[in-house]
């Protein structure tokens, strides 16, 4: 049985439909990340699950109960927001116990749960401070603590790390992952536009664009076998290289052709039968290109070199377009240097030009 199940849900603001018949099943204990650019509807979906937004059609089930018409507090959820949303006039302790007080939990029980959550998040020394006396990272910890004390079956995170600086974001990201592992069987739904967060945290990623689910899959699947051009381009940094071309069949099997670049596709796992003559886009990740003397494709020249410490990104071109190659950080290259690229068909993605769907 799914922990959270969104069934055919439509959401409408006034007369504008935001979603149409969206369905999603989330397993017990799963860490699901809703990933997409801003305005793709991921937060709307989360708000609908939380009950902060009325659905126009469809049902939402949480923990085997139809909660479509339930108030947020009765859904067994806890939520963490981007802006922390701490009550500014209450101390950290009051912030964390507010929900329990509303639920008329006995005082000793409140105390116990608040202390436990505070310990888990290492904010015990902050309990008597007010939110405006805390740093951003501490505030978000408190916000997570406030969610934690509710003992909810499902945790909802709405871009919780987006307001933090890069280093804190990394720290808290690890902490959220650790928290999920430590809580064991708690389901988490996490909304973000940051693909690194999605890749590192998720059991499954739901990639969304324009109110539609583009692909659901494990981070590995999303990264290695993106189901369409949008997913391929959105996930991964530096971005996947896209090369327009055509499939040609020859005696030995299908082959990708783009100007003078050619790539035999015998190692590629087609989902259907390749159609010779079809216009396609070849996607290849920068790290799947190998710099060699001659290689599959030659006659490239180094354009720009971006050393990033651990690795180096080399932009190179052969007159037909620029391609990014990710290589080891120790690799030295000078602009203008000639270059050949090795490509393995097993690691590329092919998309139909017309539909953008994976072949």
């Amino acid at each position, binding site marked *: 049985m799914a922990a959270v199940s969104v069934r055919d849900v439509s959401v409408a603001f006034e007369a504008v439909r935001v979603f149409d018949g969206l369905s999603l099943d989330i397993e017990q204990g799963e860490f699901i990340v809703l990933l997409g650019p801003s305005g793709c509807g991921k937060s709307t979906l989360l708000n609908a699950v939380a009950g902060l937004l009325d659905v126009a059609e469809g049902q939402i089930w949480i923990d085997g109960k139809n909660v479509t018409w339930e108030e947020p507090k009765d859904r067994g959820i806890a939520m963490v927001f981007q*802006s922390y949303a701490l009550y500014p*006039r209450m101390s950290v302790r009051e912030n964390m116990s507010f929900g329990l007080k509303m639920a008329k939990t006995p005082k000793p029980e409140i105390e116990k749960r608040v202390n436990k959550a505070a310990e888990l998040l290492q904010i015990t020394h902050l309990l008597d401070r007010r939110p405006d006396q805390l740093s951003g990272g501490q505030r978000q910890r408190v916000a997570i603590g406030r969610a934690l004390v509710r003992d909810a079956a499902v945790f909802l995170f709405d871009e919780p790390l987006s307001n933090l600086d890069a280093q804190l974001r990394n720290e808290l990201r690890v902490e959220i992952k650790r928290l999920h592992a430590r809580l064991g069987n708690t389901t988490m739904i996490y909304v973000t536009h940051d693909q690194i967060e999605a890749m590192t945290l998720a059991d499954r990623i739901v990639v969304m664009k324009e109110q539609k689910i583009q692909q659901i899959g494990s981070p590995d699947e999303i990264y290695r076998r993106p189901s369409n051009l949008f997913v391929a381009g959105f996930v991964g940094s530096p971005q996947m290289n896209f090369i327009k071309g055509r499939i040609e069949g020859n005696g030995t099997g299908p082959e990708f052709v783009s100007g003078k670049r050619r790539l035999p596709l015998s190692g590629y796992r087609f989902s259907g039968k390749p159609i010779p003559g079809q216009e396609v886009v070849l996607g290849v990740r920068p790290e799947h290109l190998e710099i060699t003397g001659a290689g599959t494709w030659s006659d490239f020249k180094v354009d720009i070199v971006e050393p990033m410490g651990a690795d180096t990104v080399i932009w190179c071109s052969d007159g037909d377009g620029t391609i990014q190659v990710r290589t080891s950080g120790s690799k030295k290259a000078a602009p203008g240097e000639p270059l050949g690229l090795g490509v393995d068909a097993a690691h590329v993605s092919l998309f139909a030009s017309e539909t953008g769907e994976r072949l």
Partner: protein
Amino acid sequence: MNAAEPQGRRPRRLTVGRIGIYAFLITAALFFLLPLWIMVVTSFKPMEEIRLGNILALPVTLTLEAWTKAWSSACTGLECNGIRVGFWNSVRILVPSVILSIIAGAINGYALSFWRVKGANVMFGVLLLGAFIPYQVFLYPLVRIFSLTGIYNSLTCIVVVHVIFGLPTMTLLFRNYYAGLPIELFKAARVDGGGFWTIFLRVILPMSTPMLVVATILQVTGIWNDFIFGLTFAGRENLPMTVQLNNIVNSTQGERAYNVDMAATMLAALVPLVVYFVSGRWFVRGIAAGAVKG
């Protein structure tokens, strides 16, 4: 060493433009301060000195006589109990009117900005429209309504009127303030299980201090200075200070007692004056926030 190298703060020079600015500011200040000066010095002078006509001069014999007379024995028509009756009437009108109108405005603003009430925008539009219709239009219909309900010419009546007419401005004030609060705060409170009133009282109201101060300033000065509503709705027993001041100044028997008139006016203006001086920066914010109607 010749001309110093530019270093540190740039020196300020007195330019023609600056002189012009100062001249204008001083003139403007005098324009508003002069009448106040005349009021204050005159109120401390005995009548003999006033008759000499040096209206700008400091009093030679300082006397508080005019003030005590204005407070306790000046005649407002037939009665001669001074302006203090009106003062306490005004206080009795002011306190409930200010409190009730602010509460109503805050609740309205809260409901309009957080609870997405159906037709909220239409309701708000209608309410705002009310703020732009001249009060005079409402006088006669309201008098009819109040006499039908039987509360005409009473304290209740004047308080109700002030609450009703304070509603558009107060609602606007609080709605705009609440619109600036993060909606996520409200969402968090809902997830935590707060209802309409709990969220308002426990989360939103404690954050409203700045607006509560501004609203209080606006309402205190507005209601204290009101004349036409007090005259029309309060009834003979509850006439506010402004109405009584008018009666004192306009009832002429023999010589006009300028010093008493001035003292009475100062007394009537005292409450708003104190509010202005005490509130300082808050008042400026209040003017900015209530710029729709002043």
